[in-house]
């Protein structure tokens, strides 16, 4: 939760309170955390202050330029989606195409397949990612043997820090016909002969989800564990007096206590449902499962850059952003309605 609030909280000019330690020596000179004073003393005051703050200006100027170039020019590049963009001529000498590229997009069957794959893997990842993290956190929270608890947690988020390239390699190795999973399945008689999981289109979503769960469960559990640490111990004492077993304590105390965290994270993740990226799909996919691995970003990459259809690729990007904003607004409104507080 802290991470989420950080963003909103750190908005400039947000009224800030407390911190009696930091009363400025000279009021109104450099109150780092104090309330922003209404600074409207006219132009003269403005330029006077600016000349005093030359160093600050020079320190931020290069990065403002950087922000504009690397973050805002690409947004301005959205205009390409409404042109027939050709890289040879400048951005102002392009032919306008209106909504042609969007129409092309919506008439393209491949696009719907990409959308289906994106949402499919997004929803699977959301459901199993959330469930696995909550279950793991609940269980870990109950472990009394502290050494085991510490080691399990430390080891559990190791995969979070390694790249998807490495994880893809691990997954492919484990699932290969000679890999451990096949060995186990054949030895226990579940399978007659080794199955090449990576070559089963119908299993691809599942493989991606499993890889995701393997990589992120420990990491995602951290935030739930933090929330569980804040539960009032008296609640457990009272339950113990009433004779509640530890299963029941888990179900009736721990789980309801972290409900707000679960809901906020769910909402944030639903907003990102369409932004699942393409790394996993690109690295784990192959020609045989390509049909199930094509997600929106890969589609944009293939068409936009691979086939030099820049305008078309940009249109895909815009579509994605619009869906993402709509999802966030819906979830935010929903959260407000059920009284869990808005996320933004």
């Amino acid at each position, binding site marked *: *939760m*802290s991470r989420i*609030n*950080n*963003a909103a909280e*750190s*908005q*400039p*000019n947000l009224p800030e309170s407390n911190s009696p330690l*930091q009363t400025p*020596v000279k009021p109104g*000179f*450099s109150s*780092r955390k104090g309330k*922003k004073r209404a*600074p409207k003393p006219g132009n003269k005051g403005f330029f006077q*202050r600016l000349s005093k*703050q030359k*160093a*600050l200006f020079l*320190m931020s100027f290069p*990065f*403002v330029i*950087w*922000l504009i170039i*690397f*973050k805002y020019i*690409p*947004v*301005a*590049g959205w205009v390409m989606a409404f042109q027939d963009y050709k*890289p040879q001529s400048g951005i102002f000498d392009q032919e306008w195409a209106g909504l042609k590229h969007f129409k092309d997009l919506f008439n393209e069957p491949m696009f719907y397949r990409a959308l289906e794959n994106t949402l499919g893997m997004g929803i699977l990842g959301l459901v199993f990612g959330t469930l696995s993290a909550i279950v*793991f956190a609940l269980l870990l929270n*109950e472990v*009394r043997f502290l050494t085991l*608890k510490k080691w*399990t947690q*430390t080891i*559990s988020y*190791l995969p979070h*820090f*390694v790249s*998807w*390239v*490495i994880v893809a*390699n*691990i997954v492919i*190795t484990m699932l290969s016909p000679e890999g*451990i999973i096949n060995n186990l399945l054949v030895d226990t008689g579940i399978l007659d002969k080794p199955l*090449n999981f990576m070559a089963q289109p119908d299993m691809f979503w599942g493989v991606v989800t499993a890889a995701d769960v393997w990589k992120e469960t*420990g990491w995602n559990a951290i*935030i739930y564990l933090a929330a569980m640490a804040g539960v009032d111990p008296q609640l457990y004492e009272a339950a113990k007096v009433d004779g509640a*077993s530890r299963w029941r304590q888990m179900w009736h105390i721990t789980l309801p206590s972290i409900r707000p965290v679960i809901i906020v994270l769910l909402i944030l993740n639903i907003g990102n449902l369409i932004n699942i990226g393409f790394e996993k799909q690109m690295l784990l996919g192959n020609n*045989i499962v390509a049909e199930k691995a094509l997600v929106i970003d890969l589609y*944009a990459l293939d068409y*936009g*850059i691979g086939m030099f259809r*820049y305008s078309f690729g*940009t249109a895909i*990007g815009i579509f994605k952003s619009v869906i993402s904003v709509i999802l966030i607004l819906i979830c935010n409104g929903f959260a407000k309605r059920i009284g869990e507080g808005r996320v933004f």
Partner: protein
Amino acid sequence: MKKRKWTKFDIILTISMLFMIVITLYPFLNILAISLNNAVDTAKGGIHIWPRDFTFANYQEIFGSNDKLLQAFFMSILRTIVGTIAGIIASTMLAYVLSRRDFVFNGLVGLLLVLTMFISGGLIPEYMLIRQLGLINDFGVYIWPMLISAFNVIIIRSFMDNLPTALEESAKMDGANDFVIFTKIIIPLCLPVIATIALFLAVMQWNSWFDTYLYARGSEALTTLQFELMKILDNANISSGDITSQNAEVIAGQTNPQSIKMAITIIATVPILMVYPFLQKYFVTGLTLGAVKS
């Protein structure tokens, strides 16, 4: 710890935690064992967490005979060092300016930064930008686009917000300008948070492969370990059957791409393991710091 009887519940918990440890660690140990095993022998299968026919041939191939992989290794290190240093300089400087609520453009700069967390141009416009800036097949493409992350700047700024202002005030009385205050007073006080962000940046740089794929594929010199691994993966991810064709001269020796892949995986994982204890220490404090704030 209070001595208590082990219930059935405790046993179930312990077993599930051990299961978690095993499924997390087994793949790494398995790959380590394969990377230390004779490639021809590996093909027979049955290697788990201990090599059967021990050899360093796969690592020798990377560090000895294969110039390209060695170069990739050094490029990975170079981009990690340069990218981390550049990122730290940029984010601390910007964070300091933003922590100065009296700065006339504070609101504007802050808004420009925070908005980037919510809007993004997307893949294609960014690609076009990089192309137009002439960063294709240029080392700069590893540094410039990732220079500043709004999230990191905000973490550093909230750390700065909680610093005592007394030192800064007295330096100002002595007539020090803001840049001197930043380098002489603020930076030394911010070392803990700088260490945290440095670790995050280093891990991010070390793990990147997509920028190489998209922007630096054409340059032999700019290839990285992650990208080389990705290429082998790409060539051989259906089965181990067809990889013999792709790199015949390697096959002739003691090793094959399949085993080299495992060795690269280990080499690419080891630095993460090395910074892992620090990562853990710092990000936990980072998380709690954030929690206290909210």
